[in-house]
């Protein structure tokens, strides 16, 4: 089993908690410290399946050091598993997303067997066990032996889970003291409390920090983009669910009246055989139009993504289906007007006509784009509101606060809890 020393290698946050005072004010960080003090003496043991790769590991690598700086003793462990075990949990992941996966009884047996091995080998030292996603969900069986408080955090889109797989996992989830989901439409009918903790962005990370004009220009030059022509940008994987063809269709209609350019930037998922097909279709559709730029950018190109978002006149996220789509919060944080589909967690981030414009079709997207490109003042007002909205609701500090509140209120069912 991995020990605490190894964990420290993966704690990546360069920022200190006090650095966020410049963003949110001193009183906000003081409030976090007050909450942290009230957890003094408790150990939070957070468990997931990997220290590197994937969104959960990235979130934890930033959050654990910040928790520690607030005086909260959070320690991070991972479970161990064979490739076959992770093949099964990958199926769980897809099934929860709604994909029609067939999971065989021997695969469930393998999942239980590896989970049991982890239960035997892992040191359960935390007062609160904070378990992430389906891979370690079965560790809850240890509760009968050791007690403690257990929280299950689901980072996956649960709006339409595969019933068979969910029924299997639900048996474990119901044994937890509390569960956490990212969006209201991920909630299930459960007998245990379910809390809403949307994901958040880090304003001080490379993807979101302020950039100089020179840096932005150098990225535009690198990709051959015209900095003087209004730019519509969508940052996302090349996936049918992100509707890149729909974005091109909307752009072509807008372009008839307003001179602008379109940037579709993103990577391809190595485990998704469809992505190559999608990108070739997108390239074919965009062929011959010099104002459509298809950019394949490698993972970790945070500065490039940041620069493209900052250079945009309008940011789009015209997905057909979404988990949470934090790219929306990233754009709003940069004061950009956003046109996005009303799917997944996007309506939480965009209040239509207040912090951005929501659409339900290509027609709706065209109308919204024209409004924003033709009315820069209105676009600026939405962008400013969007920035404030993200500042108060979708920064990592809010996520820290939610977790602290949750840990402090575990075991209480009252409407109002006095600490």
């Amino acid at each position, binding site marked *: 089993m991995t020990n605490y020393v190894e964990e420290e290698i993966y704690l990546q946050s360069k920022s200190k908690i006090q650095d966020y005072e410049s963003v949110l004010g001193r009183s906000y960080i003081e409030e976090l410290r007050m909450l942290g003090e009230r957890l003094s003496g408790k150990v939070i043991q957070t468990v997931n399946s990997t220290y590197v790769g994937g969104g959960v590991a990235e979130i934890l690598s930033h959050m654990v050091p910040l928790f520690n700086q607030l005086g909260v003793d959070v320690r991070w462990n991972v479970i161990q598993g064979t490739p076959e075990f992770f093949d099964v949990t990958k199926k769980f992941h897809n099934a929860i997303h709604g994909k029609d996966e067939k999971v065989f009884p021997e695969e469930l047996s393998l999942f239980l067997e590896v989970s049991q091995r982890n239960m035997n080998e892992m040191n359960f030292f935390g007062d609160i066990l904070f378990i992430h996603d389906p891979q370690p969900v079965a560790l809850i069986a240890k509760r009968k032996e050791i007690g403690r408080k257990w929280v299950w955090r689901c980072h996956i889109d649960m709006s339409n889970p595969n019933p068979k797989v969910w029924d299997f996992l639900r048996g474990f989830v119901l044994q937890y003291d509390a569960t956490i989901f990212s969006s209201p439409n991920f909630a299930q009918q*459960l007998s245990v409390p379910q809390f809403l903790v949307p994901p958040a962005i880090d304003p001080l990370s490379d993807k979101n920090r302020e950039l100089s004009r020179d840096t932005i220009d150098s990225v535009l030059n690198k990709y051959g983009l015209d900095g003087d022509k209004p730019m519509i940008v969508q940052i996302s994987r090349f996936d049918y669910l992100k509707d890149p063809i729909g974005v091109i269709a909307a752009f072509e209609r807008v372009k008839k009246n307003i001179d602008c350019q379109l940037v579709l930037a993103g990577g391809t998922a190595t485990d998704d055989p469809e992505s190559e097909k999608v990108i070739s279709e997108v390239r074919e559709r965009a062929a011959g139009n010099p104002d459509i730029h298809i950019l394949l950018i490698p993972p970790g190109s945070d500065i490039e993504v940041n620069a493209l978002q900052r250079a945009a006149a309008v940011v789009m996220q015209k997905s057909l289906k979404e988990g949470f789509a934090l790219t929306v919060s990233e754009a709003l944080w940069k004061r950009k007007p956003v046109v996005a589909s009303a799917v997944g967690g996007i309506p939480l981030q965009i209040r239509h006509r207040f912090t951005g414009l929501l659409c339900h079709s290509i027609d709706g997207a065209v109308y919204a784009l024209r409004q924003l490109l033709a009315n820069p003042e209105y676009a600026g007002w939405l962008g400013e509101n969007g920035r404030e909205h993200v500042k108060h609701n979708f920064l990592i500090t809010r996520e820290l606060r939610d977790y602290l509140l949750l840990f402090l209120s575990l075991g209480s069912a009252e409407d109002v809890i006095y*600490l």
Partner: protein
Amino acid sequence: MGQWIQWLIDNWLNVTIPVIAFLATYVVSLWMRRVAYRAFDRWTERLRWEGSKVVVAATRSPFLHSFLLLGAYIAIQVSSLSPEGKILGGRIVASLFILLLGWVAISVSEKLIKLYMSRIEAPQPPTTLAVNVVRITIIVLGVLILLDIWGAPTTPIILVLAAVVFIAGLALRDVIPNLLSGAQVALGEQIKVGDFIKLESGESGHVTAINWRNTQIKTLEGNLVLIPNIQLVRTTVTNFGHPVKKATYPFRFYTRLHLKELTGIKASNLRELVDILKGVPDSVVYYHTHHFLEEHHYLTPEPANDFALWVSDALGDEVLGERLASVDAFDFPTVGALKMWLVEVIEDYLAKNPDGKKAPEGQEFHFIRSRGVILSTPYTAHDLREFVEVLKKVTVDIIYFHMFESRLRLQKGTNDFSIWIKDCLGEDKLADKIARLDPYCYSLDSLRSTIIQLIEERM
């Protein structure tokens, strides 16, 4: 005996002239002392200088003694002594004068140092140090002058002394500016113990002590902050003066944070919405009618409640949406009463429009419960000035708790601020003005500004 008388007869002029010169100088000195001290007294009376008594007491007798020495010097110079005798006599008198001057200078400076160090609450060690430094300086200067009078070389000694002073200056380079600044603060009397001050850098609090190195303030959170005196004289300081009327009981600020608990219940049409609404706890209604106040507090105007938005946006029913948006939560003393009103409005509408629309898939109304977490903050206020200073710097969650949560959810008739201002400060009019503010018409920041403005106008 006869020889002595004969000598006096022979030299009566040589004796008489020096004696007359000595006595004349003494008489003049008595007159000059009287005139000089009268003028000095008048001058110090105009200045109202506390040190004048010290100077008078320490110099009154030495003034006379110095004139006696002057008289002796003149007598020697007019006598019939040999030139060598006159030089020797002059050196002796000059040496006595220097000793007298040194003694007076030490006496005066010691008393003045003790007087002013007590004003800046300097502890004993630095006071003794300052006295010793002055004493040694005067003695060294006196010795140098004496050596000079007697013709001894002084240059090597001066060089050594210069080196010592330079080293001492380096060692005390951090202390001396603070000491001088402390004296400047104390003597200027622009900042006094008990004043409420605010620095340009943001620190604020009541001055609890001014000492030789720093000035101590107690912040509204109860923390003691030590400000180096040098910083105090270099920065912009706002002095609000002495505390205003004290409250009979201090106001303690609380904050209210909340967790969003998903109920897992959702409605896809108006009938489902109202049926579920009847059965949910007040904390669910509270969430859907109040979370905008916090999440969108920067917006003016703020969006309406969740029910109104969903009916307008997801069901496309602008008429009912407008009706639901028009609710003034300020009119309802409890969340339960607000819930009843919402149910009545929707049922009334359904009775006239039974064929309600269904929300598109993915746009159902998800019922969420608010779980409030209330915790005390370190902030307290004992008077209106402290109250305003805290209001200016706390998070909007604190404003929200005392203006909304306490009034509606905990079923208090008014808000916490008004209750305290009325009951503990007796400021009934101000309390009523704040109580009459409809908090639902303001963003949280503008509500904060309005309350601060009302209090500052009163102050």
